[in-house]
């Protein structure tokens, strides 16, 4: 057990807050992860085991296809991979309309989100004592830039939703579409705001010391603010460490640690608290909403369909023409 963990476990949390945190950030966290994993597996397995159709055919067809010259599993998988990661079909011209903006917005949003999630992975790595050290300024700015780009992408896509509706002059977006956008706006907005406010203005010794002393001079972490300076120098922010300890508590079943780490987050970084809370609900939401689309493509028969090679049949024709049959 690290000195920080020992200290966190010694913190006194008001009983009301303790119960709230257990419900909102321990129980809900476990439920969210379980629902997410089980829910996604359920949906994906359900797709996989749903028969093609009557008689094992797609309404009388052995396969659905979309591309020519796909004669092998790997070629079909390649097309799916390219489609998933490049969105290239949006760049094909249609009546002078290359959907460059839509494509760029999607790339911006998805790639930035993936980058952001990758950076979140370092928190789990911290919890598993596998923290990957990144220069603090790089870590800070990469996180901010990825977050801002993802947010910009999200806002662009939301505006485009409204624009398409206006252009086609009909309602194509319903409450569930906007609910999805709203959830993402909240989660990403609070996460970004928390990130922006939880770091010192620069990573010089003086700036870190000044930031830690002013931010953590009162409250449960005040007794170890000197130690926090060293931790910030290593990990970039106290918020990062606290969330890491929360994760550690959840992963090891040390509920007390998780609660107390989250209590400190609530005291010093309430924006993060909102971010985590909505993220938990979002994990529960994903398997039962159209967010499940991210897992769909490998199961789409139109994308993985492949043809038999034509050469053997042509060879029979050639043999007949040339009198060998």
């Amino acid at each position, binding site marked *: 057990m690290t000195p920080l963990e020992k200290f966190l476990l010694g913190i006194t949390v008001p009983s009301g807050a303790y119960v709230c945190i257990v419900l909102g950030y321990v129980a809900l966290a476990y439920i969210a992860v379980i629902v997410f994993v089980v829910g996604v597996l359920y*949906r994906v397995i359900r*797709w996989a085991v*749903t028969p*093609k*159709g*009557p*008689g094992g*055919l*797609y*309404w*009388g*067809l*052995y*396969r*659905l*296809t*979309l*591309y*020519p*010259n*796909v004669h092998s599993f790997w070629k079909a998988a390649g097309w799916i991979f390219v489609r998933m990661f490049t969105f290239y*079909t*949006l760049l*094909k011209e*249609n*009546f*002078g*309309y290359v959907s460059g903006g*839509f494509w760029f917005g*999607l790339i911006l949003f998805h790639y930035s989100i993936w980058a952001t999630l990758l950076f979140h992975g370092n928190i789990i790595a911290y919890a598993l004592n596998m923290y990957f050290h990144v220069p603090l300024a790089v870590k800070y700015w990469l996180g901010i830039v990825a977050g801002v780009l993802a947010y910009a992408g999200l806002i662009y896509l939301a505006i485009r*939703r409204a624009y*398409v509706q206006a252009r*086609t*002059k*009909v309602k*194509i*977006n*319903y*409450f*569930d*579409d906007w609910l999805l956008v709203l959830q993402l706006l909240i989660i990403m907005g609070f996460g970004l705001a928390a990130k922006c406010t939880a770091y010192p203005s620069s990573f010089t010794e003086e700036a870190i010391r000044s930031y830690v002393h002013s931010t953590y001079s009162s409250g449960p972490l005040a007794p170890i603010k000197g130690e926090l300076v060293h931790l910030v120098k290593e990990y970039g922010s106290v918020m990062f460490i606290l969330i890491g300890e929360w994760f550690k508590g959840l992963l090891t079943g040390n509920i007390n640690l998780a609660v107390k780490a989250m209590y400190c987050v609530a005291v010093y970084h309430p924006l993060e608290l909102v971010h985590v809370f909505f993220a938990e609900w979002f994990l529960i939401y994903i398997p*039962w909403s*159209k967010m*499940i*689309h991210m897992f*769909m*493509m490998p*199961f*789409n028969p*139109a994308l993985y369909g492949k043809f*038999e090679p*034509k050469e053997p*049949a*042509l060879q*029979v*024709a*050639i043999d*007949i*023409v040339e009198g060998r*049959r």
Partner: protein
Amino acid sequence: MTAEKKIPPHIPSLKRDPIPESPKFEEWLKWYAEKFPESSKWINARKLMVEKFLREAEFEPGKFVKTRDFWWKLSPEERIRFFVERFREVIRENRALRLYLENCTHCGYCIDKCQMWIATRDYHNSPVGRVDLVRAIFKYYDKLTGKLFSKLVDAKELTEQLMEELWIYFHQCTECRRCAYFCPFGIDTAEVTRAVRQIFAEMGMVYEFVGNTVRSLMKTGNHMFLNAKAIKAVFDMVQEEIKEETGKDIEIPLDKPKAKILFLPSSTDVFTNLDTLKGFVKTMYALGLQDKYTFSSEVFEVGNFGLFVSDYHLTRQGKRIAEVATRLGAELVIFGECGHGWRAFKNYVIPELEKRGIKAIHFMQLVVWAIKKRKLKLRKLDYVVTYHDPCNLSRAGDLIEEPRIILRTVCKEFREREHNKHRTLCCGAGTGLLGDDVIPLRVWAGWPSVYDAWKTGAQILATPCSIDKAQFPVVINYHIPGQMTVKGLADLVGYALEL
């Protein structure tokens, strides 16, 4: 585009809109004002509700129809109950359908990719709008949120009116699958269309033109109610014409026993597309296959309108082809010219033939091999030609390069279109939307594709698809009469062949 030839602001428009480019644009504006959004009064099925038709089209209860009775004998409540029950059953049975209903994110990218939306500017005539009609039912009957918050998530209980809309809009989808190519997830609206149409067909409801064609297919093995005598009469006439043109007396084999090759033409090749038939006959002769192949009066059809009605009808005709080929002792089946038929053939009949040790190829594949091996003496025709990729060849049939090789070989100049290959535009009459009742829709739904071809300046629009060959002349004659001619690939090969 001139100032007066612009889509008015109250109508959704495109960046480079093909509709105002038509010389008949003013008529479109009038038509739009009159019809929109009730664009489908033209789809007429109710005439089919007669016992004789249903019997001939093999709609017998218990064999195909799962309902207790036909749609027209059911009360409105029973109709709705049947549709809902069957729909929920179908979702459990059909992977593609479930995926497509569950995964659309409403990005709207497919809307302007659909020629039906371009023609009508009606949201429900777009891929997402069309499927949303079914999605609303799916949410209502299969999703908890749909039941609890139906208005918020656009979940709808099935009503008579909604059933009418389903009928209308799913019979205006041409199953071209262009939307599937562009959709970021590859959502294939055609599969949803096929599912909805199958349920309607199970209730005895089929679009008139398609229903009559299927009726013929079930009765005679071809789409045109042809019997052996009628086919033979046309063959004799064509044989005479070929003799006059080439000096060669080439017998056209029909029902010849023990032929190594079974040749499947389109039944329209003995009506409107005689030059296509001549192209086949001359090519087979030139390749020295005269004594080795035959046409069959039992399966004188490459098309398969079962694709537009039900899996039962599709496989029924497919099996018939396989049975005839087996009985004949054929080692090879050659497929003539047809778009949708190639989809059914490639993706059902070929695997069935393979099970029986019989191989099958497309006529164009044989011709390309012959060109490459210099087995055919072909002259250059003095034509500037462009090519329309039939939807079912390019997106469902693995045939993209072969027609281009042929056209570059037999024509003076080949001009590629802007919307080609996987992005090809539907002719606007796919799924047998060929009735006279839908001509106002057909001429505008087909215009984007014809415009795309017209822009190339080519004089010939080549296409190896019988529906295209029926549809494009109508569209051309309406918009730009006399400015383009539609030909099959085999027609051009036939003209270019030196025997």
